[in-house]
Every structure is written in structure tokens, then in C-alpha cells.
């Protein structure tokens, strides 16, 4: 599991692209032996800009595997710090930081 963050500054906004590697199992798929794969998905995703929460999301098992998101910040300056965190239904979590150029 990992978090990839990419940002690009445009005149009107800064675009944030996030790729979270996660199975996002909803508990309704079966493995090759026909056994149900237990639900395992990210429940909470947070984006912080310079330690202030700017996006807070609650997700369910209807989000696709390896969630990919784009968000847009109205304005940023060089050196702004972005932190991404997630928490899943097994209480596993991950976080990553990125400095905007």
C-alpha cells in the first residue's frame, strides 16, 4: 500500500492528483476457491495544506480499487506542504507528504 502525490500549478489553481494503492474490497467478491473475500476498504481520507484540513472524505466499498482522485486548490505558493492520510476498516493507515514547487 502506498500513496502517490503529484501536483501541478496552473494560473487559476493547483491540481493535486492522488493514487492510493488499496484493494478496496467491498466484501462481495470471491477468491479463486469461491470463498468470499472480506471487506477491506479505505474509510477516511484527509488532505491537509500546511497542517490545515482542506478536504475530508468518507468512502465506502463502492469506490474502485486503487482509488485515484484529482482535487484543485484555489491558490498555493512554493513550499506549501500537502499531507495525505487514510484510514481503512482494518484500522490500517498510511500518510505521505509532498511539497508544492
Amino acid at each position, binding site marked *: 500500500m502506498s500513496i502517490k502525490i503529484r501536483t501541478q500549478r496552473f494560473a487559476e489553481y493547483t491540481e493535486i492528483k492522488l493514487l492510493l494503492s488499496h484493494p478496496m474490497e467491498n466484501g462481495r*467478491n470471491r477468491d479463486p476457491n469461491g470463498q468470499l473475500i472480506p471487506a477491506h476498504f479505505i474509510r*477516511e481520507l484527509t488532505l491537509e495544506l500546511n497542517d490545515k484540513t482542506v478536504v475530508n472524505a468518507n*468512502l465506502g466499498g463502492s469506490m*474502485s480499487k486503487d482509488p*485515484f*482522485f*484529482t482535487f484543485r486548490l484555489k491558490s498555493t505558493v512554493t513550499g506549501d506542504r500537502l499531507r495525505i492520510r487514510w484510514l481503512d476498516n482494518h484500522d490500517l493507515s498510511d500518510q505521505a507528504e509532498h511539497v508544492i514547487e
Partner: protein
Amino acid sequence: MLRRVFLKTLSRYLSAVLGSLAFPKHALSKWPEQDFAAGDFSDKFREIFADLPISDSQEIIINLPEIAENGAVVPITISSALPNIKRLYIWAEKNPTPLVAEFEFDESMMLFLTARIKMAESCPVIVIAQQGDQLLRNQKWVTVMQGGCGTG
């Protein structure tokens, strides 16, 4: 005199009721297990929005494929130039868990989002945006060739 007392009581009662209806019931802080439970769309929808008025708005712009070959990965883009939208809800009407996601945006964010969602079968995808204390709705039909929510 009695009439005045009655009106006072009535108005107090009404403002309490209206006050409690002004916003969907929870703040986006802790994952709301009940909202994301499996169930029928209209029941789940009512649990969150009760009987709050919701207006249809073409100014909530949804981009989705008309036909999704693979229901496991359906790309969605939501945007709006309307000011003051703090919250978005994404619903897939026929999914076993119809509430897909809820997002809360700070004012430093533009109202723009892309994501990838699962769809079990052809149905409308419904987006609810909370603008101040108003709820706005737009929706788009997606024809799904192969369901993406597993067989259960």
C-alpha cells in the same frame, strides 16, 4: 390570552423542528457506518436527508461515461462554479451500498473532483451538493455492461 400562549408555544416548537432539519444529521468527522451500510437507495437517502427540500441544479456538473464497459472502474468528474459548496455526496442508485462517498471541502478548494467508482448495474449516479443550508441535486444515467460490485 390562551391563543397567544398557544401561538408562542407553537412557534417555539416549529423553530426547534426547523432548526433540527436545517442540516443533514452528522458532521463529516467520523466514518458514518450506518450511512455506508448495504441497503435500498431510497431508505439510505432518506436516513441522511430526511425530508429536506432538494432542488435540481444543472450547475452541478457531472461527467460520466454514457456506457461503462467495466462497472468496477467508472470515472466520474464533478465540478461547479457555484460559491459556498461545502459538501458533496455521491450515490449509485443500484449498488448494494448505494452511498459511494461524501466529501467536505474547505474554502481553499475549488469545487472540482475526479474519482473512480464501482457500479453494480445500469442506473443513475446522483450527486447532492450542500450549498450553505440548501441541497442541490444533479444526476446522470450510466449504462453498465459488466457489473463491478461482485456477486455477493
